[in-house]
């Protein structure tokens, strides 16, 4: 489970809250839920827009069987959006974890102040990285370096 994202995913999907909202056709609360996920950075704007399109389709659906089918699809899309690792959500969690790791290494004197500065340079580079794939690659390398210092 990945930090706050995993907890949110578990709360929304694991407890059946989302299924319950869909079953009771409470689209108002569902709308609020999706907006809150966007506001808190757990889904990206493009994912949100796409989910809202589906919500509109759902609101326009009269047939019972079609509603159930669309509701199932929407649930799957929410799950995918939460686990996809949208840019704003995923990256801040990774940065925060690496930041804490680096800070711990300095506190435990497992890196010198000069090494800390050099590793912090890499963390700054990572924080400046826009591309998702490049970010993941850099994060993996930096985490490897930091973990190696722990041993």
């Amino acid at each position, binding site marked *: 489970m990945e930090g706050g994202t995993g907890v949110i995913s578990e709360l929304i999907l694991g407890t059946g809250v989302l299924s319950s909202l869909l079953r009771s056709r409470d689209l108002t609360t569902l709308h609020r839920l999706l907006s809150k996920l*966007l*506001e*808190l*950075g757990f889904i990206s*704007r493009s994912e949100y827009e796409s989910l809202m399109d589906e919500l509109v389709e759902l609101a326009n659906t009269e047939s019972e069987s079609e509603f159930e089918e669309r509701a199932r699809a929407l649930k799957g899309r929410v799950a995918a959006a939460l686990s996809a690792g949208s840019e*704003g*959500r995923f*990256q*801040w*969690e990774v*940065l*925060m974890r690496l*930041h*804490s790791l680096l*800070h711990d290494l*300095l506190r435990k004197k497992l890196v010198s102040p000069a090494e*800390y*500065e050099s590793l*912090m*340079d890499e*963390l*700054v*580079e*990572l*924080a*400046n990285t*826009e591309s998702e794939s490049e970010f993941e690659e850099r994060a993996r390398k930096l985490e490897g370096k930091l973990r190696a210092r722990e041993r």
Partner: protein
Amino acid sequence: MSLHGIGESFFEMYFRRLLEKHGVNYIPPNVIRGVDYLLTAGELVFLELEDTVDEIYSAAAHMELAYRIASLYNGYVVIAVPVPENLSSIRSPLAYFLRISRKYHVRRELWLVLHDGRIIKIYESKNRPSSVLSEISVTVPVRTVDGLMTVAESRRLVDRLREVLSSLR
């Protein structure tokens, strides 16, 4: 003494006392979505308080609504944290804050709050620093390129902060 890690509610209480002592009009937390405070002093300052430096990452990512609203008013978006013992620890969180907010037309600042009631405002050198609480603030510019802070500039910033802090002591 440092306020770093003191707990968000205590830091919030401390900060609110500063606002009241200096007669700053504000809208308190839990009124405006996506941000802790809105300060008004001829300009709008959307401000998020965090009591530790590493929470800047989370705050920056979760302030999208504040960036969008502040864009409408050419406002300031500020994250305020207690000054950390390890000044260099602000480099990466600040870089991330600047990167994630750079697509919005907002003026970004990071405030480091000292335990003696003073504030170090880090602002982008291309902008004018915010005027609110200027009587207790020292301003330190940071140069950005396309809205980003380079590694070299982050090191220079920390050097300048060390000088400012030693002059304040």
